[in-house]
Structures are given as structure tokens and as C-alpha cells.
């Protein structure tokens, strides 16, 4: 595997790969999101208890799932950055942090808009909601640490350490609804037995979840490529691309 990965240690190869992935995945993600949202919002049947309000799930669930997924990949990239001491890994952590923060913010806001009509409150200090809020602060912290040192490499190292430490929060978010009594309901699709959601409601949700993954990869590639260009701006291969 290392032999196969080896060429991408060279920044110009990594840049080319990220650029190509971005160009392919970006339209795919948009098409998927459009299909999934249209299907979910217009054609999926309404819920027996929540009628149409449950449709906010088609935005809320993908955002919430990937807010955790992005954090895990950011943490793993952070470990790689500290172990191999490669600038590319540090830049990928920097690329993922704001995207994850936006996903988390979307999950929190849509959750709030869902909570008001259904639960009767915008916010409650429930284990699930609180740990998701902590996740948002972790993302912001990682992003802020990158720029809080005069030496870029020192900032990156500190940010990677925070990214790794914050991974502890991810299983806490996921299991919070099982470990403690909470207002938030349990997992519907990420559990081992059959999903407790009707098939015709599940399909658009799965499409949206998958498209959000593609969107995340595409945006990460885009940001990563840009950061790579900026950090290598004095190199020959960059001047060649810019011209």
C-alpha cells in the first residue's frame, strides 16, 4: 500500500489528484443532493406522528453523521501528520476543520428548528445536544490553533494534537442517547438490526447521506489543493500551474 501511496507524498502529485477528485465529485455531490432533497422533501410520505416536520431530517441527519465522520478523518489525518511529519497531512487537517464546523453548525441549527415544533423547545442541555456543541467548539479550536502561532509548523502541530484529543468526543456523541436518558431519540439507521424507518423514507435519506460524503470529499480536495498551492508558492511547479 505504501508503494502505491508513495508518489502522492510529492506535493505536485497530491495537488493533481485533489484537483481531479474535486472536478469529478463536485457535480456528482450536487446531483445527489438535488435528487435526495427533492425526493425527500416532495415525494416521500409524511410521518405518522410528526407529519411533514420530520422532513428536516433529510438535512439534519446527513449533516450530523458527517460532522462526526469528518472529525474522525481529521483526527486520523492529525495522527499521520504527527507521525510522518508531512506538511500535506497538516494541510489536510486545516482543510477539513472549517468544513466540519459548518456541518456541525447545520446539524445544530436544523436540530433546533426541528426541536421547536416537535419537542417544544429550541434547546435543552441534553447529553446529545451538549456533546455536539462541544464538537463545534473543537472544530473552531483546531482551526484557530493553526493561525495562533507565528511559526506555521508549530501551529499545525498544536492543531493536530487538539484534533486527536477531540476524537474522544465522537463516540460520546454517538452513544450519548444510549448511555444517558436524553430528550433526543435513539439511532434509526446506524444500528445493527434493521433500520426503524420505512423504506420509502429511507432511500432519499441514504442518497443525501452519501451525497454529503461526496460533498465533503470534494470541498476538502478543493481547500487542500488551495492550501497546498499557497504553502508551496515559491516552488517551480506552482509557478508553472499559475502561468
Amino acid at each position, binding site marked *: 500500500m505504501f508503494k502505491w501511496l508513495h508518489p502522492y507524498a510529492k506535493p505536485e502529485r497530491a495537488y493533481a489528484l485533489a484537483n481531479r477528485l474535486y472536478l469529478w465529485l463536485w457535480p456528482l455531490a450536487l446531483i445527489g443532493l438535488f435528487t435526495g432533497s427533492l425526493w425527500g422533501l416532495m415525494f416521500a*410520505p409524511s410521518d*405518522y406522528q*410528526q407529519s411533514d416536520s420530520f422532513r428536516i431530517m433529510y438535512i439534519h441527519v446527513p449533516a450530523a453523521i458527517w460532522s462526526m465522520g469528518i472529525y474522525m478523518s481529521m483526527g486520523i489525518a492529525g495522527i499521520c501528520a504527527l507521525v510522518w511529519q508531512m506538511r500535506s497531512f497538516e494541510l489536510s487537517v486545516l482543510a477539513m476543520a472549517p468544513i466540519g464546523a459548518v456541518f456541525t453548525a447545520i446539524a445544530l441549527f436544523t436540530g433546533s428548528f426541528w426541536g421547536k415544533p416537535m419537542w*417544544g423547545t429550541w434547546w435543552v442541555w441534553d447529553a446529545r445536544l451538549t456533546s455536539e456543541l462541544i464538537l463545534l467548539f473543537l472544530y473552531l479550536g483546531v482551526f484557530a490553533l493553526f493561525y495562533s502561532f507565528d511559526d506555521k509548523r508549530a501551529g499545525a502541530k498544536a492543531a493536530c494534537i487538539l484534533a486527536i484529543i477531540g476524537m474522544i468526543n465522537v463516540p460520546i456523541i454517538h452513544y450519548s442517547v444510549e448511555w*444517558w436518558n436524553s430528550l433526543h*431519540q435513539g439511532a434509526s439507521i446506524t444500528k445493527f438490526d434493521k433500520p426503524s*424507518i420505512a423504506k420509502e423514507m429511507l432511500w432519499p435519506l441514504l442518497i443525501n447521506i452519501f451525497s454529503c460524503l461526496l460533498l465533503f470529499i470534494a470541498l476538502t480536495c478543493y481547500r487542500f489543493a488551495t492550501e497546498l498551492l499557497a504553502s508551496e508558492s515559491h516552488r517551480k511547479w506552482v509557478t508553472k500551474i499559475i502561468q
Partner: protein
Amino acid sequence: MITRRQKRFYTIMALFAGLALTVSLVLYALSENIDLFYTPSEIINGKNETGIKPSIGQRLRIGGMVVEGSVKRDPDTLLVEFKVTDTGPEVTISYEGILPDLFREGQGIVANGHLIDSNTVEAFEVLAKHDEEYMPPELAEAMKGIKHVKPSENPALQGGQP
């Protein structure tokens, strides 16, 4: 022979393991306080692990299912009284105010209020909890015999007779 790379990797893993242990111990110690609510049986019999019962006058949250046929409404005011249960004991909740749309008999709710005697809670906030099952109304009727009725058309929530 351990390379520098391996050494860094093991250091990170050791740090992470230590931190994970610390956090899990802290959460374990705090677990009672992280619970959002007491269940009715915990109010009557005390918490499972410690057996501590909440004291009268204490501010607390209680969560459980609304008992079928227990909802009583005052015809002139917004006062409503109902019982909640989880597995056995029932606790009465009185509340004055507007209930959330999802509130109906058999529904899970969380109420925030004061314990006024051993099995009565005077609530100042009632929140509805919904479960993780989503299905279209026809399927729900076929599977569970639940017919979706809009709260405004539900006789049990209108007149006061259960």
C-alpha cells in the same frame, strides 16, 4: 529497533489512551448528573445504582410515557393533569400552559418542574419526546394500530374526558 516514527506513534497512542481513560472515569462518576431526567420508577424507588430518591421540593426533570386515559383538562383554564409511567409506578404531573403538538396519550414526554410530594410533580415546562421510528401513517395504522389524528381534532385533548 524502534524508529523515531514508531516512537512518535506510540507516544500519541499512549496519550490518547490515558486521556480516554480519564474522560470515561469522569463521565462514569458524573453519569447521574448527565441524565436529562428521572424516570417515574426512579422517583418512587430511587436511582438504580445508588437508591437515592429525590427530595420533596427539589427541582427536577421527569421523563416517561403519558398513561392512556389519564389526561384531565380543566375546562376554564389551561391547567392539565396527567400521569406518566415507565415500567410500573405512576407519577402525576400538573401543568398550566400550552402542550407541544406531539403531546398525546401513550407519548413519551419530559417535564421540568418541582416535586411537590412523593409522587406529584408541578411542571413549568413539558417537552414531547419522539422515538426513532419513522413511517407513513398507513403503515403505522397497519402495524401498530395507531391512527394519526391532528391534535386539534383529538377528542381526548379537547374536552377533558379521557
